[in-house]
């Protein structure tokens, strides 16, 4: 039964969402964990595909899902100057609407990424889409424009010619952006109703791709920014800093995760932190063995899961950091893994999804090729699995 869940009761979710929805990068908790235990286990490019929708262009962004609608971004045209926001019907993959925008920022980037790298976020009423060009769009769920911002028009020195990738997150009616870059580097809280700044704070000039994490403890939600030398919590409504944890060589690509009331922080070493009520968190353990590559780590049922650059899935005890088992999967991986119903879904860049039964010993249940390059993280949707390549959005599971 679907019911409205509030962020206060869920603990980690700070926006109004429906059970089963997947409103942002890595889902409601921002950590790649779903309660959906009915996701498909086996498929191929021709088998167990509910529907497959053509996409107008490339993208690394993941789809987001709310109330039976799937929202996705893409980019197209010579030099990626065309930006797309798409809405599909989850039932049958029908394109409900598409809106396009002209890129106003620089489209220069590393060939592996593109202008549709950040994942959009939705509250079920609106969808907020940020592109690597720093074009920021808010549409209602029927495709009507609510507001639009050109952040490079606002802040002309903003620049990351490898390609921006951090996704926005939404806390109540404040959209939080972390745009750490080689020019005017900042974080901002944007009024979801008007698109105007609620707050804007200066950040160090440096390139950072990881996505902020909303973390709730004792009813208080903070937005966590991970940068190379600091993990810091801010009030998402005001931008005021609540605490800071000094560190070194934290990651700029994989994002932090939360689970079991703890924070999992990737870097040269993986850190597990226990946040206090308002003070800086304390270090529980750190491990150089658990060093994620591009994919973000996950914490689930008192265990930590990390995909290394060598394509090895590591499972460690969340209390001690002790590695419990390792399983070599078919990598390499850009997509962050998804855990749903005690199974882990790891999607390789070649579009091969390994489904691993989690437990005291890992068991690879299936290895499923889709035949297309996939860099976007997998998304659960009402018992089905959404995968996005540059050409298609796949809905995997029982037919229409």
């Amino acid at each position: 039964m679907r019911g409205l869940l509030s962020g206060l009761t869920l603990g980690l979710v700070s926006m109004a969402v429906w059970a089963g929805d997947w409103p942002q990068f890595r889902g409601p908790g921002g950590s790649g964990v779903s309660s959906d235990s009915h996701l498909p286990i086996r498929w191929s490019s021709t088998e167990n595909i509910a529907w497959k929708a053509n996409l107008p262009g490339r993208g690394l962004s993941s789809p987001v899902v709310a109330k039976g609608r799937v929202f996705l971004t893409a980019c197209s045209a010579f030099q990626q100057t065309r930006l797309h926001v798409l809405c599909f019907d989850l039932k049958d993959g029908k394109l409900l609407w598409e809106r396009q925008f002209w890129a106003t920022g620089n489209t220069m980037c590393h060939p592996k990424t593109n202008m549709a790298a950040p994942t959009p976020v939705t509250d079920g009423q609106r969808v907020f889409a940020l592109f690597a060009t720093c074009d920021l769009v808010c549409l209602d769920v029927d495709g009507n424009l609510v507001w639009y911002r050109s952040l490079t028009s606002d802040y002309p020195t903003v620049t990351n010619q490898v390609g921006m990738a951090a996704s926005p997150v939404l806390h109540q009616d404040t959209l939080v952006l972390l745009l750490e870059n080689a020019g005017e580097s900042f974080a901002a809280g944007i009024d979801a109703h008007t698109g105007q700044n609620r707050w804007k704070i200066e950040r160090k000039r440096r390139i950072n791709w990881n996505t902020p994490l909303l973390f709730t403890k004792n009813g208080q939600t903070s937005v966590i920014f991970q940068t190379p030398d600091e993990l810091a919590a801010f009030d998402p409504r005001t931008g005021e800093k609540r605490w800071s944890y000094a560190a070194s060589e934290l990651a700029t690509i994989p994002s932090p995760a939360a689970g079991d009331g703890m924070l999992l922080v990737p870097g040269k070493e993986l850190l597990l932190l226990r946040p206090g009520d308002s003070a800086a968190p304390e270090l529980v353990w750190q491990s150089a063995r658990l060093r994620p590559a591009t994919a973000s780590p996950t914490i689930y049922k008192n265990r930590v899961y990390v995909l290394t650059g060598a394509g090895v899935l590591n499972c460690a005890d969340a209390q001690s950091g002790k590695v419990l088992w390792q399983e070599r999967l078919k990598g390499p991986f850009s997509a962050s893994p998804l855990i749903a119903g005690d199974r882990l879904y790891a999607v390789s860049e070649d579009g091969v999804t390994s489904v691993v039964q989690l437990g005291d010993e890992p068991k690879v249940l299936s290895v499923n090729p889709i035949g297309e390059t996939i860099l976007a993280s997998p998304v659960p949707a009402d018992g089905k699995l959404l995968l996005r390549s540059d050409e298609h959005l796949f809905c995997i599971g029982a037919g229409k």
Partner: protein
Amino acid sequence: MRTSLALVAAAIIGAPLAAAADVAALLTQIKAVGREGAGNPQAAQAWRELAQQGSEALPAILAGLDDAHPIAANWLRCAVDTIAARELAAGRSLPAAALEAFVTDTRHAPRARRLAYEWLVRVDPTAPGRLLPGLADDPSTELRRDAVAVLIQNAEAIAAQGDKSAAVAAYRKALTSARDRDQVEAIAQALKKFDVTVDLAAHFGFITDWLLAAPFDNTNGIGFAAVYPPEKGVDVNATYVGKNGLKFGWKPTTTSDPFGKVDLNKVIGKYMGVVGYGFAAVHSPTEQRVEVRAGTKNAVKIFVNGQEVFFREEYHHGMRMDQHVAPCTLRKGRNEILIKVCQNEQKEPWAQEWEFQLRVCDAVGGAVPLRVLSEKTAAGSSEGRVMP
């Protein structure tokens, strides 16, 4: 003026004048959006009303794009898409004749004409066959690109029939219109099979003859903001004292790279934490609006006739042709182009490049008539040549 154009456009398709006036007021409200979301609430209200208009409003909204700044342009574009998609979903058509008239009227903004074209094609699939042959030299880069693609296909078809001279002529015709690098390279490769060499640097308008002065100090990045003597005025016979007391003057160099790349590591030497300047004097036959387009992995500033027209302080995040674009005006006669290329002190293997490429072109990317002037220096003479 633009409002009048919008009214005329609306009148073409018989829309009531009162409705057109309403649209004009809504366009004005939307175009008032500014930086940091200024005017968003009012624009949102106007947008909702605008998006409820019927398809007869499309030409007026498209015309509204003519003078819209980039922020407002995206608001208006979304209104066009919303109206057009809704009309088609409801089983109604779009005003094809008015859209086609808009596409073929080059007084309108290139991006607006392209948008009109895309919706026209949705309701009239024969439009590309009818329109593209006349759009090969269009001011819209996207319309031109599609037209050039057709020319390339034609040339390929002729080449497949084995008529060498006709194929070469067809490829040359495509090349004359082509502006995008991938299309130009494809044409050049095809012509090479017929023993025809394309001077890519000349086609794109890259400056290949430079005077270089380096190394000035950029230790800890201080050089980007520093105003070294060349920024105060270039004396091609001057001697400078640079990093670590090194003395140097302007050194002529000519690059043979097909895309005009100048490698300072090769010409000046391998230095880290330094600034290099590239200087070229060009003669323009008339006063003309141009775009100075540069590519570099290094932090960069560009000056035209002593005025800074572009800066980007970012290091080693890739290099692409036309990565940086600076619109400016060249005066009739002599003009001076100065590029400042900063190398930092990163040690990674991928952070060693110290190079740039620069071209002068029109807004569509076509080389403009220029003559690079020969400059006699203490170290020698730059070649100087006519381009394109």
